[in-house]
């Protein structure tokens, strides 16, 4: 049984974007803060910190979850993927990112990392989503800039492109 006292700093090990990473932290540290402050992976954004805005969404063992509603210690030993994992090492955008660029699906970009990670999971489970399916999943994200139309067309295009490969 894992037991950590409240003021005890323990080393949390996990896999981040395919690499073994670790840092010392307290039990109360949120996964979102652990990624940003302890591991320096600032691609994951933090908006509301209570599960409403969706911009902190990451993949935990391949499943899209809110990193602000996850403790770092809960991700111990598990596989975490963030927006930093999407582009190729040379910076080439993946199909989902490229579709966002094509459709002007971002303005300030604050909400984008979370949306990209949600749909990285969702399009694997449902490769042929309808617009209604997309809007349903998108309801877990808030975007204050775009009005969502560009995001929906980008996601429809991305689904088509990934499906037709």
């Amino acid at each position: 049984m894992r037991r950590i006292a409240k003021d005890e700093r323990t080393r949390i090990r996990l896999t981040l974007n395919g690499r073994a990473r670790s840092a010392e932290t307290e039990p109360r540290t949120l996964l979102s803060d652990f990624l940003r402050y302890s591991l320096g992976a600032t691609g994951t954004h933090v908006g509301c910190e209570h599960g409403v805005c969706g911009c902190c969404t990451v993949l935990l063992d391949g499943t899209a979850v809110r990193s602000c509603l996850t403790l770092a210690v809960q991700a111990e030993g598990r596989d975490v993927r963030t927006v930093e994992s999407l582009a190729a090492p040379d910076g080439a955008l993946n199909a989902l990112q490229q579709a966002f660029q094509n459709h002007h699906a971002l303005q300030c970009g604050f909400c984008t990392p979370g949306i990209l990670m949600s749909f990285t999971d969702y399009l694997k489970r449902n490769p042929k989503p309808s617009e209604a399916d997309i809007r349903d999943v998108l309801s877990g994200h808030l975007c204050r800039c775009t009005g969502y139309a560009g995001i929906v067309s980008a996601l429809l295009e991305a689904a088509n492109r990934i499906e037709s490969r």
Partner: protein
Amino acid sequence: MKPRPFDYVRPEMVDEAIAVLAEYGDEARVLAGGQSLLAMLNLRLADPTVLVDISRIAALDEIVDHGDTIEVGAAVTQSRLLAWPRLAEKLPLVAAVLPFVGHFQTRNKGTICGSVAHADPSSEIPLALAILDGKVVLRSQRGTRMLAAGAFQQDMLTTARANDELITAVHFPVLSDRRVAFREVARRHGDFAIVAVAALMEGKGAVRLGVGGLSGRPEVRSIASTNGSATRDAVQQMAAELEGYDDLHASAAMRRDLLCRLAPVVIDEAFRCAA
């Protein structure tokens, strides 16, 4: 905001978890998916001494088909139950309500039993458990007991769980009459419902109506379904009895009005469903 400091324990067995609960009592909080609890910790609405993380107890991560009931363990996420291949066939009402529970991203981590434990008065899973007359399994070092959903949830965020008890599972009865329907009104899809209404046909001429968002807990009544005006009267009487409550999202009067408008539609849908 960030949570206040707390001790963290992550048992691998149910016995370890209930030993910690016996030791800490009301200073402990059980963490499963954390989709309500982590938000409450971040907002500092909850301030436990110790968090007991049960999410890695393998024995709790099971869906068991007992034939007449489906048992869902305390670590089973909402999305896992939603993806269970027999869900629509065995528990059509649960299949109907789950897409309304939070969002895709929160269902991936939020648990079925966690929603029941949190006991929000308008939340969908406690409503489904109540109208199906399901059961909650509570375990402590003192033993195991099973409570009917109606006896478990007592009021807003208040349940019959003792401080040393762990909810290990809930049981959803499998009904032979598969005619069910569900609707809710919420500010946006995935938010807590303002009013949620579920209906089950009960053989000839009667319908069981379950209502969330009108009082501190889901309310279930059997009413006549055959005669339109008698049904409407019964719904109106139910709305008047339950009164509703005022909060940020809606007034009591609006909640009563929503029930009176939604219930006949939902009853009608259940009536036609698979008919």
